[in-house]
């Protein structure tokens, strides 16, 4: 497994572990500690984008067809950019949608996630090809 995939899948596992912990507190009692319910958007963001989307990035980078010449997985720097941007986005959206007055963080976070998706798509696009 390439280094970028290890980082992406391990970070996805951390997002899963953290998102599930928050979800467990929310499920056990939505009014627990008087303010945990406010963090529901962070729970959702960790599990949808931080876990599921990032896991898909990591596995796709590992498993999509490789090139015979040059860099075998194409433009690695785009993959690393996607990794940094998607995690920045998860934090900004999760906090921005959970904390009153931080809505602009959520917009910045969604923009980062959008750029991550674009970078990942640009990296993966030429690798979607027949085996030769």
């Amino acid at each position, binding site marked *: *497994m*390439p*280094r970028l*995939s*290890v980082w992406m*899948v*391990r970070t996805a*596992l*951390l997002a*899963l*572990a953290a998102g*599930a*912990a928050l*979800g*467990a*507190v929310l*499920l*056990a*009692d939505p009014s627990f500690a008087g303010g945990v319910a406010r963090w529901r958007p962070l729970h959702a963001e960790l*599990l949808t984008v931080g876990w*599921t989307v990032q*896991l898909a990035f990591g596995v796709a980078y590992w498993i999509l067809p490789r090139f015979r010449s040059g860099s075998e997985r194409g433009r690695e720097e785009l993959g690393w950019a996607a990794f940094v941007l998607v995690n920045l986005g998860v934090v900004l959206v999760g906090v921005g949608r959970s904390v009153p007055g931080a809505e602009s963080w959520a917009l910045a976070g969604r923009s980062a996630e959008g750029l991550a998706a674009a970078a990942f798509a640009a990296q993966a696009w030429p690798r979607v090809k027949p085996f030769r």
Partner: protein
Amino acid sequence: MPPLTRWLVKAALLYLVAALVLGVAVQLPVAGRYPLLAVLWPTYLHVLVVGWLTQLIFGVAYWLFPRYSAERPRGSERLGWAMFVLLNAGLLLRIVGEPWRALGHGGHAVLLVSAVAQLLAVWAFVLNTWPRLKER
């Protein structure tokens, strides 16, 4: 395909069918008139994303991720089975307990057990998968 993966993927398929049936139920035009249908949305969502999506991922990852070692290719099989039992027990308790609580009948203890079981299942998966992610 290892036995644990077969159980995980087949359970995931059952949850997929159940989630889509629940999805129809909560969208029925008469849903608002039946208190039970009106409170099923969070249950539907979690049956779909935990029961189907996450469980499918767990099953496929357990099968296809790099091997841990020649002797224990998939890490701890015992931890894997504990994960399967805890995830499904926790989710089934949620399916019963969440609407029950939403309708004002209590059920806090059931949901506490459900929350702990699902959390332990997730952490078991993370613990078992982490050492299999190796750079090569």
